[in-house]
């Protein structure tokens, strides 16, 4: 699988996700600079975690308008795969590639802890190696992860089974509506999620629960 990781000024989990992709798929991803206007020929584009532009104005707002984003949109229109993790999810919503918005955590504090995630959809290139309803461990680390969408949008997301992950067992860390932790685009080829599966892929990190996501992707291309 060929993949590219977009690096914005202030991205800080790009190395984490590159290591995860490299370790699982055996192919090192290409780093792409935000100021570039074209993407290399890849199957998957990753928008990594971090604080692009310091999270100033709104998380992901400035990055969503970076030059590279036109190429990312074109990649989506061609049916290419995109995953946005944490800040990447915020960028995807700000760019209009996913609906809704990520607001300040209900507790107002940054939160870094392990949560339980329920896999709510497995018919996707990202989650096919999980079982429907399976509950996994996964770390979160964010300040603005409180997913919000208006009632119509929410009804559509739920109706089209586009919620990929939900916080389970009372572990919703941020007040997200319907316990939403990750959502899919209409064609199910774009995933945005707040938790960090890339930080739970080897025994040193205390578990392997994030691994199947990258394995699913490696097999998808």
């Amino acid at each position, binding site marked *: 699988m060929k993949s590219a990781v977009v690096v914005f*000024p*202030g991205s*800080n*989990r790009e*190395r*984490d996700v590159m*290591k*995860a992709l490299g370790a699982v798929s055996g192919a090192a991803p290409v780093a792409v600079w935000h100021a570039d206007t074209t993407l290399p020929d890849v199957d998957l584009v990753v928008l990594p975690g*971090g*604080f692009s*532009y*310091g*999270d*100033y104005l709104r998380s992901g707002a400035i990055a969503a308008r970076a030059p590279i984003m036109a190429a990312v949109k074109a990649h989506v229109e061609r049916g290419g795969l995109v995953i946005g993790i944490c800040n990447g999810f915020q960028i995807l919503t700000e760019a209009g590639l996913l609906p809704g918005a990520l607001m300040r955590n209900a507790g107002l*504090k*940054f*939160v*870094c*802890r392990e949560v339980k995630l329920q896999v709510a959809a497995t018919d996707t290139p990202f989650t096919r190696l999980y079982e429907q309803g399976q509950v996994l461990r996964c*770390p979160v*680390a964010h*300040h603005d992860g409180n997913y919000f969408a208006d009632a119509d949008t929410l009804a559509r997301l739920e109706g089209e089974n586009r919620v990929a992950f939900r916080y389970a067992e009372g572990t919703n860390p941020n007040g997200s509506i319907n316990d939403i932790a990750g959502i899919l685009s209409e064609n199910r080829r774009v995933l945005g999620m707040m938790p*960090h599966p*890339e*930080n739970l892929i080897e*025994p*040193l*990190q*205390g578990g392997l629960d994030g691994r199947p996501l990258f394995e699913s992707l490696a097999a998808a291309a």
Partner: protein
Amino acid sequence: MIRNDVQITPALVAEHGLKPDEYQRILDLIGREPSLTELGIFSAMWNEHCSYKSSKKWLRTLPTTGPRVIQGPGENAGVVDIGDGLTVVFKMESHNHPSYIEPYQGAATGVGGILRDVFTMGARPVAALNALRFGAPDHPKTRHVVSGVVAGVGGYGNSFGVPTVGGEVNFDPHYNGNCLVNAMAVGLAPADGIFLSAASGVGMPIVYLGSKTGRDGIHGATMASAEFDEGSQEKRPTVQVGDPFAEKLLLEACLELMASGAVIAIQDMGAAGLTCSAVEMGAKGDLGVELDLDKVPCREEGMTAYEMMLSESQERMLMVLHPEHEEKAKAIFTKWGLDFAVIGYTTDTLRFVVRHHGDVMADLPIKELGDMAPEYDRPWVAPKTPAPVPAAEVPAPADLGQTILDIVGSPDQCSRRWVWEQYDHLIQGNTAIRPGGDAGVIRVEGTGKGLAMSVDVTPRYCRAEPKQGGRQAVAEAWRNITAVGATPLALTDNLNFGNPERPEIMGEFVGCIEGIGEAARALEFPIVSGNVSLYNETLGEAILPTPAIGGVGLLDDVDQAVTIAFKADDEVIVLVGG
């Protein structure tokens, strides 16, 4: 506007924190009355923070060498060999007063400062720790200070992208008016890629990098600046605001520039910014320095030489570059969206010359600025050791179960999860032992090794018997590191005390240092960097003596790291030690 030709009155001298005999020393050194800018420069170089004038004599007694030590105290951070061509680079630093005035920004910029110290050496920061001390939980100001400080530590480190893997939090009424925020940063650098601050070569460009200069944190001189600042309606706050985003860019740009071979010397602009960094680079390299302030990137209009020399604006660096690499260097900084300006040159005159609008605002002997700072052997008295309380006189608790609940529910013993969950402790993907154990452990990427780190001190022990307290702090750091399976390497310290001009406080300081030195020698646990913070007092009431010790250890196999949780039923529990 602050004019440079104001009359230097005794009041102005005092306002700059200089004693009459210190001012006399300046007059003797330069043979004339200093200009205001020069007075500001002296006050910055000769204050306690930069000159260590009260502590130097005692710091010299500490063991600072060892077979693995590559760089001891005196640079931005200490450097220790960990094999595989790699070194660990670390230091701890305080930001106590700013954090009490503005908890969020004070703590944030404290973290920013220590991260900068580490990457200035050429290291990529891989872990952070913090030792925090607050007033009594029921003191009206405590809640505000605690929540601001913790959010500020997290706000900066999380955005910058370094995992915060350990620390400590204590409460005591002695910190009611003076909290302690000690931040430690740990980085990794190649053994052949360590950068130091001494300039070399005459006529080399001195380059200013990073964020623009504003009127942030122009201390000592707040009165002067309020008085001469005609234009502003409101009193200018002297609080520095941190910009972790700019710092992250500065990190990436500096590491890229260092890898390019362009850098001769580098120094971060910390306290007293441009003054301290420029003087140190020149003095250490036995060179003069000429600065042209017209070239300094400024955020505000009409800044005077005095203000530029004393500004503590954050996220700035000074470098001496190989002239043939200047264009390449500039391109790297432009790519990262940071300011880059050649603001001066090294000279062979051993003078520190500062020009602004074509006028010479300062012209001082550079070696003397650093080396001739006053040094004091302050009088001290050993504090009286309280008589031991005979165990028989301590009543046995009526209900042991309740006593356990009281202990684990007490502010000093309860879980710190609420603190470290506000810190990203997993970023970079190498965290092997998360906060909540004896020491944090991270993997050394690209090797199977691990680094263990812990910060420790028990201030009430230090108050009761300073020497024992000093020893105990070192021993506790040592124990926490060994408890996770690591071999202790070296330590950094942050010595927080009250007013050293009071003999009983100086006695605490001397006692703690003796204890630290003794334990460090006995354990072969050398001190490679550190920081002294004195005058932590409010209304004559000093904080508890708080020499925080930050220890670092090495695991040859990170997979062997041991955590504190019991692993299974029916296992034997063994108590070791005396």
